[in-house]
Every structure is written in structure tokens, then in C-alpha cells.
């Protein structure tokens, strides 16, 4: 549904839409890698390696 609407909202012929979708996907992945995942990882403490008096 959402992606269907997105597809219809994109202009141009099919090849251009495919290209735009790819660009949007890469941009979304980049935003995730740069900002979203570093923030998200704070709440997924699979990497803590220190000993502390209060549990993190």
C-alpha cells in the first residue's frame, strides 16, 4: 500500500522510477548507518564489556 503509493507518486517511466527507488533506499540505509543505528544500539546492549557498580 504505502510502497504502492510511493511508486505511483514517482514521476517518469519505469526505469526512472526504479532508479529513484534505489536512490531513496540507499539514502535511507545511509541515514540508518550514520544516525539511527548508533542511537538504536544504545538500547541493544549486546556489547557491554565493562564492570560497573550499577548494572547498565
Amino acid at each position, binding site marked *: *500500500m*504505502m*510502497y*504502492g503509493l510511493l511508486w505511483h507518486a514517482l514521476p517518469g517511466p519505469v526505469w526512472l522510477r526504479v532508479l529513484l527507488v534505489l536512490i531513496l533506499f540507499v539514502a535511507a*540505509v545511509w541515514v*540508518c*548507518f550514520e544516525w539511527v*543505528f*548508533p542511537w*538504536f*544500539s*544504545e538500547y*541493544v*546492549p*549486546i*556489547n*557491554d*564489556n*565493562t*564492570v*560497573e*557498580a*550499577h*548494572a*547498565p
Partner: protein
Amino acid sequence: MRHASRPAARRGGAFGAVVGVIGELLITAGVFLGLFVVWQLWWTDVQAERIHTQVLADLDWTEPPLEVPDNELEGPVVAPEYRDDPPIMDAPDYAEVFAQFYVPRWGADYVEPVAEGIDKAEILDRLGIGHYPDTVLPGDLGNFSVAGHRTTYGRPFHGVADLQEGDPIVVRTEDTWYVYRVTEHEIVWPQQVEVVSPVPGLMPGEPVPELTERFITLTACHPMYSAAQRYIVHGEFDYWAPVDEGTPAELIDAGVEIQALADHDAGVR
């Protein structure tokens, strides 16, 4: 006929739309989590290793001397082993990279930076190994304690469970080598801060006895890809040597080339 079927179709359409959106949200969440795993297990390593190489190169420390005997290939000078009180560096600033960490057991090309502090995002995820600020500096009486990632962010302590009793751990500050030897390992809960006590095992609040020994303690997560417990390695001080008098025999025997490290880093830069 058309007139009659239209409201029903619209109702079905609304229901289908909701299901469709939920389905697409679930697919999106799945892709998001999949990408998160890729980021955590792969990209954090790529990023952190790049930074570690850079900070090691930025140290720009002098290399230990080489000797060129007659008719021989040049090689590093074996450092004399001093067993008196070692020199202790001045306290580093927070987040300052103040030492290099060599562990021959983890390979001839293993070297990682040690920075002051154990903040996850700022130190451990970026700069590599972090020094517990409440513990002593390398070579001092007490327990020089460091934390490092075992699986991600450049994983400086990836091989922590491979260490065996007697293995050398060599810490270099700008002017001094400190050679420790592994004595034991243990697996503890994250709250067991006594592992980094001035004498390992001394409970918080207990009076600290007069310190006579120089320990090193490594803390890493355990089991791998989990944070349920901590893998701890303890070691004791063996000897020290000034950097301008040579390279510890433990590193030379393992094929660690301090000279080559500097060249390699310069190339990467």
C-alpha cells in the same frame, strides 16, 4: 448490481488497505533489523579499524632502535629487562590515547590504542581499548585495568579467551615498555567490580592493604555477542624497559615489527 457491490468492495478495500500497510510495516521492520545486524557486525568494525589505524599513526612516537651488525640484516635491539620500580607516566587527559597494546598471542600484526576512560560511545566504540580511570597507570602498584570490545567496533579483545597462563601482554607508553604475564581468567557478572580492585578480588569498601604487586586486568563481554557476563583476564607485571634501549624480546620473538607498523600506518594515512 454495480450499485449494490460498491459499498462492500469499499469496505473490503479499507480492510485490505489496513492489512497491506501492516504487512509493509512488518517487512520494513524486518529489513531494518537485518540492516542493523549488518551494521553492528560489519560496519562498526570497518569504521573502528579505520579510526584505530589513524590514532596509532597520529601518536607519531619514536621507534625503538635497530642494530646493524657486520654482515647481518638489520634487526631490532633486544631491550634489557629492568625489574626495579618502573617509571610511571603522568595522568592522561580523558579520552587521550596514551598507550599501545601488544599481545603476541593475537598475532604479529596485533596492536591497538589504549585511551583514558570507559565511556562506550566515546571511547570503547571509537578509540579501542579503554582504561578504567579509577585504576592505576601501566607499571604502577595496583591494578592497571582496561576494557575492550570482543566482537564489534574493531574488536580489540576478540581473542581474549585464547590467552593462556604465561602469555605476555606488552603495554607501551611513549617512553616505556611494560611487560605483563597472564596469570588467570574468570567469568563474572557485570556488577562484580572487585575484578578491577587494586588487588583483584578485593571487595569495594574493604580496606586496601599496602600495595606490593602490579597487576593488569582485561574485561570483555561474555558470552560472545551477549552482555550477560564479563570475561576477565588477570596478569602480573614481569619487567619494564625504556623504548630507546630496544624492543622486548617477547615482541621480537613473535615477529612483531614495530618499525613496519609505523610505515604501514603512514601508507594508510
